[in-house]
């Protein structure tokens, strides 16, 4: 109870200049995070340099909640690489392994087929209607490293948005009521 009274006291005693300087500090923190994210995007060449594994289709290698680090290079795609790709019309990217590659000499077109390690069949049923092969442009990056379990925070915040609001609210309260 005394904790709440303390916080209410500190909110009442805030001055405008202090509030502004705290807001600016908050803005700096957010901007720094954004700069780091964009820098990572440039470094790895991928639109989304860090992804969270959402399904169990690559088990036992990647479980739900693992984080993957992606890297994109001009090198051609080869069988066996773990790639993250987008299907047109679907928002969520898919992390699977390339099992077939066909490169046409004259036109330079490349046809790719993928499959999840734990899935019995290839990904044709996941592609857009009428699409039998993936195009290299749909691939966002290759998985080069991974950290287990670190993505559960993101999954929980996405699936139960109330937790996201609670966390952001608590953080905001902490920032506002700090005496610095």
């Amino acid at each position: 109870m005394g904790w709440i009274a303390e916080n209410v006291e500190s909110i009442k005693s805030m001055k405008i200049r202090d509030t502004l300087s705290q807001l600016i500090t908050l803005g700096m923190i957010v901007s720094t995070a954004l700069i780091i994210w964009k820098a990572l995007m440039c470094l790895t060449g991928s639109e989304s340099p860090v992804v969270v594994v959402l399904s169990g289709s690559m088990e036992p290698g990647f479980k739900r909640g693992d984080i993957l680090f992606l890297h994109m290079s001009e090198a051609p795609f080869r069988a066996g690489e773990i790639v993250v790709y987008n299907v047109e019309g679907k928002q969520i990217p898919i992390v699977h392994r390339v099992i077939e590659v066909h490169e046409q000499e004259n036109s330079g077109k490349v046809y790719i087929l993928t499959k999840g390690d734990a899935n019995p069949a290839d990904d044709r049923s996941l592609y857009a209607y009428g699409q039998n092969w993936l195009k290299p442009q749909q691939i966002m990056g290759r998985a080069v490293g991974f950290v287990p379990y670190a993505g559960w925070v993101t999954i929980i915040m996405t699936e139960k948005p109330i937790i996201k609001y609670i966390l952001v609210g608590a953080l905001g309260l902490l920032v506002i009521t700090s005496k610095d």
Partner: protein
Amino acid sequence: MHSFGYRANALLTYALTILALMCTIASFSDNFNFPSPSVEIQVLNFNWFQKQPHGNDEVSLTMNITADLQSLFTWNTKQLFIFVAAEYETPQNSLNQVSLWDAIIPAKEHAKFWFQTANKGSNLRGKEFNLTLHWHVMPKTGKMLADKLVMSGFRLPEEYR
């Protein structure tokens, strides 16, 4: 400044930083492993070779795979994903890679083995193809490594059967 909240925050940040550092070091320790795997693949038989209605050819072959991949395992290895891919050229495509068979090796003890397997692929008559055994080291944490061993000189039968 000494409230529970601040202390918990400082502790959590420190713990996460140390954890990230340990993961990086664990991954770095994989660089000190110099593997020397050995693989041998024999094609025992071409079971059947037919032309499909939609233009592709389909072949079924039986392979005998003998391998010793124990040296690829380190303490930071969760599993090894291996697969055999056939690589060949066609008049239209300068490169084709088709995965014929794959397996997951979860532990060092299973890494010395031989396997007899029958597979299908789509290719064309009389073609020469390379069989490549690829392996992907999936670590417990950190950087993933991949490498392969190419065995060349296989040939598809000239006639359908």
